[in-house]
């Protein structure tokens, strides 16, 4: 993945999005082939890779016993690039009480805390695994959109996994569709849309996804073949 873009990783539940992300984070050892992040093997060199990645987990398993202030203090110790001013700005933007215990926060607030610690060290790669599962539509639009765009504008890269395709369509520059562990389509979003044009109408990502991934179940729903890359 070239730097400075927002990559949308889409696929049905169980398609392999989280597995791919786990490989990037070094949480899975590749049985064949190899994984390189920033030119490094994430399993062999977890410190080199993970210190440059911001990660918001789908499970958002931030320890409930910590207070927001403790979590910030704890997390900043791991990242030399941690930016205190930015962390404080995010805390205030997200209206997080520093003395609140994580377990007492709402689901949306917990997602905000997770986002704060993923962003405050200004990672070179931000990995968001189904981040919208904890956010209401307004927060999702305001926070995620702004954050992803900001990071992309600064030349940083975002890998954004979701099965909410309208969300991906809104923020991604490049979309990768996976199904049963294989890439079925990977191309810039504009290129995908243009290549799937039907009678002059640009289909939504939703329609393209159903046509691509649902092909084996219902071939009649296929859109005309695209010029975009894809393993089929």
């Amino acid at each position: 993945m070239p730097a400075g873009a927002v990559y949308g990783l889409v696929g049905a539940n169980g398609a392999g999005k989280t597995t791919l992300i786990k490989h990037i984070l070094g949480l899975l050892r590749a049985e064949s082939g190899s994984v390189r992040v920033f030119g490094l093997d994430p399993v062999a060199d977890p410190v080199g890779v993970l210190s440059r990645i911001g990660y918001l987990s789908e499970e958002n398993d931030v320890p409930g016993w910590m207070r927001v202030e403790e979590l910030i203090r704890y997390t900043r110790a791991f990242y030399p690039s941690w930016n205190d001013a930015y962390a404080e700005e995010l805390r205030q933007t997200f209206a997080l009480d520093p003395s609140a215990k994580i377990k007492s926060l709402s689901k949306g607030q917990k997602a905000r805390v997770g986002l704060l610690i993923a962003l405050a060290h200004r990672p070179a790669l931000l990995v968001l695994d189904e981040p919208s599962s904890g956010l209401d539509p307004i927060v999702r639009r305001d926070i995620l959109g702004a954050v992803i765009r900001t990071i992309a504008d600064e030349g940083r890269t975002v890998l954004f996994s979701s099965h909410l395709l309208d969300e991906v369509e809104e923020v991604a520059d490049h979309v990768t569709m996976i199904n049963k562990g294989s890439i079925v389509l990977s191309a810039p979003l504009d290129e995908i849309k243009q290549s799937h044009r039907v009678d002059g109408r640009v289909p939504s990502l939703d329609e393209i996804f159903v046509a691509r991934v649902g092909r084996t179940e219902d071939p009649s729903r296929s859109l005309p073949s695209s010029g975009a890359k894809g393993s089929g």
Partner: protein
Amino acid sequence: MTIPARMTVTDRRSPALAIGWEFRQRHRWGLVAFVGYLIVLAAIKLVIVTHDFPIDFDSPETFAFAFVIPVSSYFTYFIAVFTFGLDGDIAARQSMYPARMFVRPVSTTALAWWPMLYGTAASVILWTATRLLALWPSSLEVPVVWPGFLAVVLLAWAQALTWMPYGLPGVRVLAMVLWLTAIDAIVILALHFRASEAAMIAFLLPQIPLAYLVARYAVARARRGDVPDWSGAIPWLRTSGGSQPRRSFRSAASAQAWFEWRLSGKSLPVWIGVVLPFELLLFWTAGTASALLLEYLILVLLTPIMIATFAAATVRRASANMSDSYGVPPFISTRPLTNAQLIAAKLKTTLASTALAWLLIIVAVPLALAWSGEMPLVLERTRRFAEAVGTPRAVVFSLLVVAAFIASTWKQLVQTLYIGLTGRAGLIKGSIFVTLTVLFLIGPIAEWLIETRRLGRLWSKLPLIFTLLVCVKMSAAVWIATRLYRGRLVSDRALVAGAACWCVAVFALYGVLVWMLDTPHIPHYLLMLLAILAIPLARLSAAPLALAWNRHR
């Protein structure tokens, strides 16, 4: 509750069956181990006792290993299972009854009473089966009925107190310790005064419906979200951990050590703090009986080691999350730290934990001896010992004994890291099963060795046994070191430094042993082998390997 594919709606129409199925399905391996234990007991009774094998089943040691330890272990396990104690946070204000059950279309009474009835049935079976099978013809007098009632009462109260919401964090632990200890204390008093079985049943029986009613009330409160909050009445609780800025961590390693301390480090010193006062009270009952006082002192010194065995369960977990006992959660596995650094934080925490626990003991024991008036007796005994062996030897021996107790405590905390951090449920449960089996068998085997006069032969074979064990240990250490080196899990410098430290510790221990046991009956090479076996190496160095296996699956 997540219903697996194998279980269809038509399979389980009754909530009672569904609740029972959940217990059985989730804890099936524990139940299999329990049935295995009963089968072994039955086999011993049928084969060995009826054939009159030369094993003395009458001794307290055999009774303890065959009966008391397994029954106590299983009863503790049943408490954890039937209170849902394995799922929740015991220190939290909220009820530990699983919230997922509250949305089931089942009455509150059914929610509370079915797990209680299953717990009652399990306790009764545990007692009845072991009473029938584990007690072979002997002179030991063991009551027939009331211990079963005691088990039911303790479990029912544990369930009621566990499911009750409280106003402050930690109150549940306090309530359980005080209430269950009070019941135990009354039973011990009754035993002391030789109360009849009828009297014991009269004391215990009425408590069962009472505990059931309290549990129903607790579940009803928890179900409607009625969790009191008393923190407003205590000002410091409102502001603890407040917004005032605190000092930053010096490094990632110190941050991780803080995390580990908050997660598991406090449990050993806290439990010592809870148990120690009760043990020290015994000093006031010793009078002039020096043997009794010595027993009490040994009990106090053994307590950290015993508690560390249980505290190790929290240390060896890779996860901060109670519901994820085995795998490493993303929050920890995505820390930019090497596996060795993650292990180092755990080891640092266990050292601090051991030091604090022993500081409590080292301060409290002399104070208790002085206040109870037993200090002169201890000083007199110490003076006599110094006269007999010489002051330097007496001082070194005493220091060595204390150091051995401290080292054993730490060893208990860390020696199972290499199993727990693998994150493989089968391995972890299997190791627990093997440990319990060894505990169960060690007593009868020791008795058999003594009774059949094989102890002398075993003593003569000791050098060979030690040599074999050393070979196994060193081979394992070499294999582990090679894997650590090849996998770049530990730096070359850390490997060399670790090996050097281990050699220094072995030679230091060897030197002390040679000086202490200067007798022609024990050859020096045997002491060397003993020193090699005593200083931890293979299991400890396998911990980063185990974590890597878990973290990068």
